[in-house]
């Protein structure tokens, strides 16, 4: 009896140890970035797990010596507009794909799925030509346009999945009342889709906020860059002396809002990810 209880206790302790190790592994790199960003000058080059003398110098320098505020604004504008546009286009498409039977429906769904599998590099030169031809090179519109390639298929997939789950009685009642499909979408389904739209929008926002390849290729000047590109291209006095403190400060600024969003919407994100993955 006693030995069994002892074994249970040891197993429990090991499990908690495992949990602690996982948490440490997941969180430490971010913690280390925060610590490093608060160190100024020579302190950066000593390993110190709690900064003895925290400074905000790196944060100040970020906004003083480069247009980092502008970069943040760019990222917000691009991600925001991409999300709004994708959701708008995806809601009506999801209604058609999720609730109406017509020939070629599965073909359209497969095509949307195929687009979400596109490697971005595969469309890079064609997209470059398009962006230049539309006169959008080195503008934020170039990014809004090109990001639709990954946010739109994703939004269509997830919203179609949500549309399918809606009870059909809702729609039948509306049809009996003589409602047109447009009324059904906007008056019947849309008010019920708040959570679905929030989840999809949030995931699309994060994807657009984090995008790097198109932003790197279609913008040229510092003022037009989005945050990931700005962070990737921070350089110091010389090629071999990167301002790590400042890079860490920028990393922390970009990550904190995302972490807050993720913690607040934890459950929704998990359900959206699983739905998207299963469907996508």
């Amino acid at each position: 009896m006693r030995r069994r209880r002892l074994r249970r206790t040891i197993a429990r302790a090991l499990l908690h140890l495992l949990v602690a190790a996982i948490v440490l592994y997941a969180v430490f790199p971010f913690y280390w970035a925060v610590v490093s960003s608060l160190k100024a000058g020579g302190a950066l080059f000593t390993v110190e797990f709690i900064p003895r003398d925290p400074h905000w110098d790196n944060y100040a320098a970020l906004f003083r010596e480069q247009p980092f505020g502008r970069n943040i604004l760019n990222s917000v504008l691009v991600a925001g507009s991409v999300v709004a546009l994708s959701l708008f286009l995806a809601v009506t498409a999801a209604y058609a794909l999720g609730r109406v039977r017509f020939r070629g429906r599965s073909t359209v769904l497969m095509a949307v799925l195929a687009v979400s599998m596109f490697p971005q590099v595969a469309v890079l030169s064609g997209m470059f030509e398009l962006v230049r031809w539309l006169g959008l090179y080195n503008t934020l519109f170039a990014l809004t346009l090109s990001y639709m390639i990954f946010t739109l298929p994703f939004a269509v997939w997830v919203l179609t999945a949500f549309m399918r789950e809606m009870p059909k009685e809702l729609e039948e009642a509306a049809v009996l009342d003589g409602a047109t499909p447009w009324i059904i979408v906007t008056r019947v389904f849309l008010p019920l889709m708040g959570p679905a739209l929030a989840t999809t929008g949030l995931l699309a926002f994060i994807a657009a906020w984090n995008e790097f390849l198109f932003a790197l290729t279609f913008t040229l000047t510092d003022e037009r860059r989005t945050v990931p590109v700005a962070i990737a291209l921070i350089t110091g006095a010389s090629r071999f002396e990167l301002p790590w403190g400042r890079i860490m400060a920028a990393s922390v600024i970009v990550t904190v809002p995302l972490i807050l969003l993720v913690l607040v919407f934890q459950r929704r994100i998990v359900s959206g990810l699983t739905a998207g993955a299963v469907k996508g």
Partner: protein
Amino acid sequence: MTAATGRGRRAAPPGTAARRGSDLARHRRRAARLFLLPMAAVLALVAGWPLVRTVYFAFTDATLYDIEYHEFVGFLNFYYLATDPDWWRSVWNTVFFAVVSVGLETVLGTVVALTLNAQLRGRGLLRAAMLIPWAIPTVVSAQMWGWMLHDQFGVINELLVTLGLIGEPRAWAADPGLAMWAVIAVDVWKTTPFMALLILAALQLLPDELYEAAAVDGLGPVGSFFRITLPLIWPAMMVAIIFRTLDALRVFDLMYVLTGNSRATASMSVYARQQLVDFQDLGYGSAASTLLFLIIAAVTVVCITAGRLRFGTSDD
């Protein structure tokens, strides 16, 4: 997984309305086509057209500074590609990266998912912590790890030297022999949470009675995992693995930020972009992009066919 089973059970969209009158059904179908039109037009513009143009450019000698002026060169670009050892190196790098990192992520993700599934306090905290690496932009993770792996001042070198595991600091990201492992380490850190959450979703659908039955049969925890749990969550795991593999095959940000255009780690995407943008060779870069697209398309088709065969026997 809920969504998948839900789709099976409630497959039919409201057919009643369609049956009630063919007029109404026709009206609905017309509305549906109209509703699809804007989405289809945007996707054709941002995906279809650029893809067609990229394939077209692959057969020309177009340059980035003068796209309009170009000549048709047939398969010349593909011939150069086939004879360029750097291209083959990037193919190998990409495949190696995809196989090793997805493999490690699957194993680690399963361990984390099983832990998250256990009844214990602090589960919410653990799940929140797991979401942090997932939310951090790839570029930022690459920079954070680049600093931790720094050859002179990195905390990882410091720890390993203090613990006596390595004699002297290593240049993790710059040493050609180590750089790929550094890239894999960052990717595993960043994407294991995704894997873990998908596997966890599958685990939570399993009824408790299963484990009680296993305990009665005298199966230990390891035995019951391999005999009972794994076969049941395998379909969900396959979906996650396919998803991650397709993602890993097009990797760009991580290598570009952590190791630059270094030959030791350059993926196919890095190679293609370098030709296309840095060397301004639009035709040649497009040829590389086209090959990458074909490779990913082939992998997708194989996965979907294999997946359908598997699901077809177990599902219905």
